[in-house]
């Protein structure tokens, strides 16, 4: 079995030993040296591949996505694949191109070059609603909630449920409260549908924003810094929500600066630096130290 060091999906889960991995990254000795004692781990390689198949096919594929704003190259030739039931951590320093990439996937603007495919069908979005129709939902960093509306009101904003009698249609509050309650219960969140968002904790607000993405049963959920502005206790709540999304076979892309959160919920991590992807590997095959090195540029690529 030929195994490249520190790359590819073959890295076994039980091989997770971050400091050692990190040390090897900086180790000039040939790969074969590390692998000499690892032939026996071939079995776990196969298991890893099998796990990928179990969780489903690649739902989102980006090929050579670039974005230029005038002379500024925000993204250059980014490839990215996300599978069902999997969470991909997208990391990078400020200005590395994370937000640009998310906005392209969410349909805020089109890429300058490259292609996006959802379920192997190439898609071209010119506005967020088109991305939503194709199964892409995004939870914005500022959550994009209306403080003056209830939790249920925010979940159904722009997609209100209505009753109809002849030409007159009116909001079906009962149905919206019930459906929102079900969504919150599925997320195991204690958010109450009738509460005003103004009166909610950061974790509950996240639950509202995430519950909203589940209305349309999306294929891909993009999350932009969901744990950036909330307390430690609420972070766990949000990470649980992400686990729940994975369990229900959604693909998740998590943009975050918080290393522990990415390592807690993500299956893979991709690192952007100056608009280019410098790493994309299973979380089990890397370490916070390595990722930090990749983000800062201390490690060129992996």
């Amino acid at each position, binding site marked *: 079995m030929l195994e490249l060091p520190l790359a590819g999906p073959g890295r076994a889960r039980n091989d997770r030993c971050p400091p050692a991995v990190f040390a090897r990254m900086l180790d000039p000795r040939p790969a074969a040296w590390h692998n000499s004692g690892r032939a026996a781990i071939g079995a776990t390689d196969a298991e890893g591949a099998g796990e990928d198949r179990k969780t489903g096919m690649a739902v989102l594929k980006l090929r050579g996505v670039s974005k230029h704003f005038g002379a500024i190259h925000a993204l250059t030739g980014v490839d990215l694949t996300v599978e069902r039931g999997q969470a991909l951590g997208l990391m990078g320093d400020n200005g590395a191109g994370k937000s640009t990439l998310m906005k392209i996937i969410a349909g805020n603007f089109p890429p300058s070059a490259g292609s996006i495919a959802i379920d192997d069908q190439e898609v071209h979005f010119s506005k967020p609603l088109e991305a939503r129709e194709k199964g892409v939902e995004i939870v*914005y960093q500022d959550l994009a909630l*209306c*403080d*003056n509306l209830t939790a249920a*009101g925010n979940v159904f*904003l722009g997609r209100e449920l209505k009753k109809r009698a002849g030409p007159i249609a009116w*909001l079906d509050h009962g149905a919206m409260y019930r459906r929102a309650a079900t969504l919150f219960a599925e997320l195991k969140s204690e958010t109450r*549908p009738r509460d005003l968002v103004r009166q909610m904790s950061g974790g509950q607000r996240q639950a509202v924003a995430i519950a909203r993405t589940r209305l349309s049963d999306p294929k891909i959920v993009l999350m932009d810094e969901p744990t950036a502005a909330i307390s430690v206790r609420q972070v766990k709540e949000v990470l649980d929500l992400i686990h729940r999304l994975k369990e229900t076979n959604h693909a998740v892309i998590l943009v975050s600066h918080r290393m522990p959160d990415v390592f807690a919920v993500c299956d893979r991590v991709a690192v952007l630096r100056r608009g280019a992807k410098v790493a994309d590997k299973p979380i089990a095959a890397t370490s916070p130290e390595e990722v930090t090195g990749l983000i800062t540029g201390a490690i060129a690529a992996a």
Partner: protein
Amino acid sequence: MTTETTDHARIDDSIATRREMSWFESVTRTQPFWVLLAILLLGLVMSQVSPVFLGERNLFNISRNFAFFGIMALGMTAVICTAGIDLSVGSLMGLAGIVTGLVMGAGWGIEAGFLACMAVSALVGLINGALIAYLRMAPFVVTLGMLAMARSIAMVISNNKMIYEFGPDQDLFTWIGGSSMLGVPNPIWVLIVLTLVFWWAYNYSTWGRWVYAVGGNPQAARLAGIPVERVLVSVYVISSLTAGLAAFLMVGWFGSVTNALGQTYELNVIAASVIGGANLMGGVAYAFGAPIGAALMELIRNSLLLAGIDALWQQFFVGLFLIIAVLLEQIRNRGRG
């Protein structure tokens, strides 16, 4: 498995049906409730102070007078809910009143007069709304400009003359604005119907929901797929239409119209909306707040008159109550934050 399912259903149900506040509590948290209380209190005091106050004639006058402001405040409330302001309503009354007078005076029927009145109002609202929504101009500036322009056009087309001939339908026209049904002035009937329509729209229509959302967080509303620009245009058109309707009724009541109709009314209308609980920062509005706010102001005006205080003091108290209402709102917000 079965027990687990029922359990979930029960939990869902308890979450869905749980109310944070009783109906009474949720009502007492709104500004219109407290203003209504103030109205009743003031009424009680006045009925003791002045024997004329509870007289049928006085109550009839009070209710008719505040109906016009209440109708316009309903439209203004929607504008304020989107964090906007419409300063042009007073001038638009003058323009719409003159247009109605000119059309009907030229021998057209009341239908044509009404349609012309509504059409010119809608046009003014459309211009306001388009400049604010699509060119992203500040509502204050746009509607202040329209305040000057609408009044000026009213002067030009009326040739600065009073109109008191309203053609073949003059009797019907003056009956609608100046008469009553079942002892209640017609403008009050219009106000009651419109208030119920607005109450329904705020609570049960997507339009109402979207007006709240645009006022609460326009960026979030846009991302949720709400046509923010069209919602903004709609509230300015509606505000203008209520001003046009108030002008139509008021000209019928007066039996004449000059281009000075509605001068400085924008102040009273904004004050009525704000006293009725509309938050100038956007996102908060009550349909019942508009008539209640207008009623309080008219009641104060009437009380001052009955108490023998010079009418020249009236605007002073309108301004004073506007400032007090905003101050109270700020204090309440601070308590909440």
